[in-house]
């Protein structure tokens, strides 16, 4: 005998179980159990997907705006921004096409960000 009796019995039980999987019937309680388990597993899959997302970047504290920008009026700020972007000939881009939508403080922060001179 090639296999010992415990392995033979295990194999025969395995074949019987496969036949039951193929031809057996499930009850309505089994259907409900399967759906509930499916929901539970789906929640875990969602968690695994969330784990694949990159971790949130640390929030950086804004540096104080240089004094020279604080004294400018809104029109002067927009003119300066236009001059700066033109002088850099496309090397600088920002998301706001219409600067009118930005507050004076936003304009100052943008200018300060573009300003490469030492503080």
């Amino acid at each position, binding site marked *: *005998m*090639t*296999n*010992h*009796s*415990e392995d*033979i*019995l*295990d*194999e*025969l*039980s*395995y*074949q*019987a*179980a*496969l*036949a*039951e*999987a*193929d*031809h*057996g*019937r*499930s009850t309505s309680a*089994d*259907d409900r*159990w*399967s*759906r509930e*388990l*499916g929901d*539970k*597993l*789906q929640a*875990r*899959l969602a968690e*695994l*997907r969330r*784990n*694949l997302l990159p971790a949130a970047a640390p929030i950086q504290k804004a540096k104080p705006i240089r004094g020279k920008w604080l004294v400018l009026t809104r029109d002067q700020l927009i003119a300066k921004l236009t001059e700066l972007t033109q002088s850099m000939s496309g090397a600088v881009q920002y998301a706001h096409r219409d600067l009118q939508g930005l507050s004076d403080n936003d304009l100052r922060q943008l200018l300060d960000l573009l300003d490469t001179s030492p503080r």
Partner: protein
Amino acid sequence: MKTTTTAQRLCRTADEQAPFEPSEQWIEAFEAQNTDELRKRAHRFARSRARFVARAGGRVDELYAAELVHDVLTDTLFGVLTWDPAVVSLETHLFGAVRSRTKNDRLRALRFRHQSLDASDSAAVMCEVETSLAATRSTPSPESLTFSAEVIAQLRALAGDDVEIHRIVDAVEAGASAPREIMSVGQLSEKSWRKARLRLARVVDELSNHVLLGARRHA
């Protein structure tokens, strides 16, 4: 396939566990194959294997089969069980793990009839059982071999003059396991193999009462 039992997990230390972070492809493969139909098929499979454990004296209640399927799927999603979608289908992995765990539960029941096997048992008892079982897994005790030999003899008796069931048993005794091997060694066509396997399942079901009576005789 690597499988890990509850007791082995309890025996592990926290340091050994690395976070499980499968790829998007892995998640998609699991999601696509983890269908309602698969879970119900697995439940029927596990129910049949549960009777196999109960026949050895294992404590099996009505939730046992459902918990087996639940545990294997969640253990796979937590990385306790390794599944490679490029190598085997989720069904093969799931059925294989249920088979392995029920086989362990059966052997444990045969060896430790005096021990309770509930999941609520203390980790220490489970570790002791698992360690002892692992040490002797490759060599079943003479008692369990005698017991299973008797069960096979009873199975043959119940099969009566069903030649095809006897051929399946002969083929498995000769070392065949995959369906193609069993068909080849047992000289069965695919159609007669499928029909005979169904009759075998009925005979295996009928075994329970006979075997329990036999086990009582030995007690």
